């Protein structure tokens, strides 16, 4: 029983990751609104950030500071990688939003189905 509780509670970060990942993915797939899709994409990416940061964390570890008083460090590499991934995510969101603005100018709507129906007209 205590094993089960440990698995469920002790790994709560991973449960959050999975929850966020599925939420984000669902929003991207299920919503027609282009902005909502981008929000979903962001949540999806954020879940991966949490995943990486969780890997790097060592219980009781500090930031990697060289000094007498510190012996246990968290692994900084995943954290650095995620800084890169965050930058990529920001760029993607910015570009996505810019495209949505242009789409709104061209079609007068940002709903996927309305755009499709406009395109299907000859």
């Amino acid at each position, binding site marked *: 029983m205590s094993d089960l509780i440990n698995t469920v509670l002790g790994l709560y970060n991973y449960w959050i990751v999975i929850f966020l990942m599925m939420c984000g993915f669902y929003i991207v797939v299920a919503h027609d609104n282009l902005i909502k899709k981008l929000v979903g994409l962001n949540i999806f990416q954020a879940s991966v950030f949490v995943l990486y940061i969780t890997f790097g964390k060592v219980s009781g570890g500090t930031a990697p500071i060289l000094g007498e008083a510190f012996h246990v460090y968290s692994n900084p590499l995943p954290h650095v990688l995620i800084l890169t991934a965050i930058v990529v995510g920001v760029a993607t969101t910015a570009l996505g939003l810019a*495209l949505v603005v242009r789409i709104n100018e061209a079609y007068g709507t940002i709903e996927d189905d309305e755009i499709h129906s406009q395109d299907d007209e000859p």
Partner: protein
Amino acid sequence: MIAAHLPALQVVVPLILAPACMLVRLRDAAWGVALAASWASLAIAWLLLQQVLASGPISYHLGNWAPPIGIEYRVDELSAFVLLIVSGIGAVVMPFARESVRAEFGTRRVYMFYTCYLLCLTGLLGIAITGDAFNLFVFLEISSLSSYVLIAMGRNRRALTASYQYLVMGTIGATFYVIGIGLLYAETGTLNMADLASRIAEQPGSRSIGVAFGFIVIGLSLKLALFPLHLWLPNAYTYAPSMVSAFLAATATKVALYALLRMVYTVFESDLTLGLVPMYAMFLGLALFAMFAASTVAIFQNNLKRMLAYSSVAQIGYMILGLSYINVTGLTATIVHMFNHAMIKGGMFLALGCCMYRLGSVHIRDLAGLGRTMPLTAAALVAGGLGLIGVPLTAGFISKWYLVLGAIERGWWPVAVLIMLSSLLAVAYVWRMVEAMYFTPPPETVPEGMDTRLSMLIPTWVLIGASLYFGVQTELTVGVARDAATALLGMPR
């Protein structure tokens, strides 16, 4: 002295010159900078290939940090070959771009177009050269983000939605790849590909590694438009500016395929025998589906760019098919076809760019009588079409020959038959094109003058000519591809 730094220069030259394009602002100057960068990249790629062929793989340590701590650039036959494809296409497409971009894009802020193009080139070259799994992700995103922008610059408003769709699917693909890399890092503590391979070999049957493999394969399959994950591709190639369609069709999917080959054969190689074999059955099935479904859809397209886009999905099927054999001949076919298809499709998209420039359309209705109004362009389309079918003396034949040979070697006779049957579908769509161009009278109102500008015709024919030349002279392509395939499978020469 400088020769030792060629691997870094390969990526750094276009990367540094991209903002330079932005700074000069003048249309022709920006074009000149992009042209110089493309040709310099080609020269570097050629020198690298010669170095690799002469003295084996090159390992370059960025900033002198030794791998696996530092980022390693690793050039072996396969990556040198892919570098040559990408930079070669870039170098040929750039002279074409000047007129084509001016006509399709107007004159405002053209320098930004070239900046994006150079960033895209940087990303694609980076993917091919890096030996670090996370660095690959960064380059993947550099190339993807810039190609979303390039596609969105198409004149039709549907270019915007095509780009948006590609952005969503591409980002999901890249994120899947990052998840996979994260799991691998958690399991092995390294990101260097060679190091990953040896550490994965130490823990056979690990479930995390299996999951990582799944994420990486699906993520990259989205990027390379493996059927049925190809949905972004037809719209993106159809509505992008002509020069962008030609450049991306010839390079982007090939480079993603390269990344997949690298992951499957270099990183996970030792797991091939450990229960992941169904993966290859999956590749085989999807490849066959792609060959038939996409070719069939291509037959019914009236927009020729869209027809070629669907044909690309089918051709990617052939490349994946070679990968699924797990033997040297099959892999050779895959690698050779990456090269051959880049020449053929690049050339054909450029030819359509000529039509777009002169006629303002690539609808099959508007191409009636093209054989008389634009004889050289029409001939290029036919020669490329023959290559897609795989007629002897074209490059396409060489690829199909090795594919069939590999299937027979594996004892898969039905697959060999299916390859030939699917070529018949290609005959159907190429014939539709020929019929329109040669057996339909041209419309009354044809623009004056013969064919199109030389600056556009020459690049088109360079690529089409290359596809014919390498259909006869296979020493370079098949030779390098075979070496690369042998090295990938870890067999002695």
